[in-house]
């Protein structure tokens, strides 16, 4: 399956921002912050317009190449997706 279209999509009106409390998303009055360093790295990558899931996994993976390392990084991205589910769009980019 072609995964080049697998990208994170923020819901309309949701933006990444950061302040003294760290990285987070802003959607209207809601401001959920990243819960850990890995989620902060993901938000930083999104802020830099890196939406591809592969790129986000690479952004989190600071242990180098390898199935296990990439797997652990993918788990972190999956956790991010579940935590911020309310602000993300499900589905593949058309």
């Amino acid at each position, binding site marked *: *399956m072609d*995964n080049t279209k*697998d990208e*994170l999509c923020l819901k309309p009106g949701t933006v990444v921002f950061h302040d003294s409390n760290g990285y987070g998303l802003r959607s209207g009055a809601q401001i959920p912050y990243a819960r850990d360093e890995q989620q902060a790295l993901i938000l930083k990558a999104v802020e830099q317009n890196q939406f591809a*899931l592969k790129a986000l*996994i690479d952004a989190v993976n600071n242990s180098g190449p390898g*199935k*296990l390392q*990439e*797997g*652990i990084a*993918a*788990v*972190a*991205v*999956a*956790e991010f*997706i*579940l935590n911020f*589910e309310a602000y*993300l769009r*499900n*589905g*593949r980019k058309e």
Partner: protein
Amino acid sequence: MKPHISNDVVTPALREAFEAGWQTCRVIFFSAPCGFGKTTTAGVLLAGQTVCRRSAAQPDDLSAPLDATCNAVLIDEVHLLKNPVDQQTVCGWINVNPNVHFVLLSRGALPGWLMPYQFTGLLLAIEAQQLMFDRATTGRLLSQNGVEPTAGELTAIQNDSNGYPLAISILSRRMAGGVPYQVSVADEVRREMFFYFEEAVYRRFDPSLRQLLVRLACFEHFDAELAKLISGDSHVNDLLAQILHDTTMLQFDGVETYHFWPTFRQFLLWEMKQDCTVEEQNDIYRRAGFSYELQDDYFHALDCYSKGGDHRKVCDLLIKNAQLHPGVAHYHEMEQYYYAMPREDVLRSPVLMCGMSMLTAMCLDFEASEQWYAELQNYVARLQKSDANYKEAKSRLIYLDIALPQRGSKGLIDLIGTVFRAMTDKNLRLPAFSVTSTLPSVMNGGKDFCEWSKMDDLLYATMRLPLETVLGKDGIGLADCAICESKFEKGEDISTRLLALMARINEIQRKGTPDIFFATMGLMIRVQVMQGKAHTALSTLEEVRQNFVETGQTRFLSNVDAMRCRIWLRLGMQEEIDRWLRETAPSITSHFRAMWRYQYMTKAMVQIACGTPNEALLSIAPLLPYCEHCARIMDSLHLRVLVAICHYRQKDDHWKPELLTALDAAADYGFITPVAQYGAAILPLLTTCGWNKDPAFYQRLLAATREQTVYYPDFLRPAIALAEPLTPAEKQVLRLLCHNRSNQEIADILGVKLPTIKSQVRSILQKLSVKRRSEAKEAAETLNLL
């Protein structure tokens, strides 16, 4: 003591077989152990013939010439004819008297010297099974002795005795005078029967044979090698051949396996208690346990070691079996042994602590489960990484973190990371676990992954490759199956995805696990059902079943059979449904098992279709707290729908809040299929419940439900109530009438007088508002009465 069996207690089937044999054969050979009433039965069947009676037990009987006026010769105790001269005498009689029928009675199997008559079609063999009483015959015998049991008692008597004539004869004497059938009476009958076996069979064997019989009684089946091991006698083949010749209490399958007739085996076990000291009995059981252990039959080995009082071996085997078969089914099979283990023995073993935690969780004792988890945690905390037990103990702890049902799936993301690390950490050895727990689903298998369904596309894209590359064979096809299921439950068209998934089925079978194979095929089957192709779905499922049988994956069969029953419900295959309910469905009287939830829900569907919604509610009641405690979203949804249908059928207004809660949950996840699949059963509730929180979702759900109703308009439809319902006796008569039995045949089968049957048939026709039997049969089918 010779049993008395009344003169006219011969089943119609036996009489028919005998009379057919009388027409075409010259020799009729009765082969059955003692107590089957061979002599009396033969006497009844030969009524009206001029019979010359002989017995092989009387030496002079074979030297006296036959009476020239007789047209039938009855020879009893033929198994005693071991002398070739005597055998030739009987053959001579048969050969020179072509107009005479010979009826031979034997406790043993057909001997070689009579086989030529069988090969040439001159001999009919009647076996023990044909002499067993059916229910009607049992009722008649009891009645002749002044015993009139209730229908329930008659059922219990027939089940307990299996129609064994001796048992029923003794029972009829014991129950004379109005004594009800109860455990104490059954025990007395058993004791009297065993005393008879002792006198008539056992004491006639020499001591070495008796010793062999008692030792072999520990085994349900055995072969000559096992018999040699147990007895220590290299001539055991000869001993077994002698037993086979003298009695059919021992059976041989013709290849290599022997087994005792079950009642005789019970007698031998009883005899063992009479004749052997406790130490001797324990020794016999331990030898038997060792033999089973050598064959890797841990289930029977545990039984024998437990009976032999060898608790050390029980403990060792539980640990060994848990290591070999870590799947959750193992714990239920061994449950009694786990609970019998002394606590201090369990606390010494991480494998046993893990087993206890899983087992208690499966039985919904979550408090005990967490206590055992805590004990294992403490055990690990006391170890160093260099300790020999550390790897096993740590691995078992991680396994519990993943597999315990009460842990839900919220923290599972952390655990997946932990699993990834564990699987590549040389210091750990994770036991095998099943994502599906033998259920046909990844999303609703061992854990409920409904929460993930909300972001299924993103999570699939993120986790697909890591799951396959890190989990190895456990991950092959996992993510693809999960995304397909998620979309299917949302009512989306998954044809493209399913095609891609099915293209991998060979890979899943070869390199993956049978669990993912079943989940994948289960999804395919569910899609076929939802497309109105229930017959195709059934064929697909039969192939899956066959595959599991051939590959020895029997742990899936219970859920396969439940799935099959759900398809039968759509096709209206009532006989098959009834049989599943009678023979396979879990009983509510046995302990509740969370892992049988799919079967409990299937049973509830059957009970709804049978018009007994109150029984359906009983079947699924224990599941409700389980689903709540273990965050089972999908199961909760199905349960609420089933409960709503039950209440609706009972005309109880509580159906509405149940369905509204279910619809709230379904809408939250976008799930269409879990509700729509109930089609005709849920449609009237859906159209009147007034749920309006999400009109677009509701319209989609309604359209999908209507589609299912068109495909299966009678799904879970109860029998239409008659103005005046049929009595239980009338239902019995109607059932036989639908099988084209005449009134006389019905009377014979039920043991009731003919005028009574005629009256019942008249009543049935009147209640069904029909004039003819053929119309009654049609009405029974149309109204789904049986």
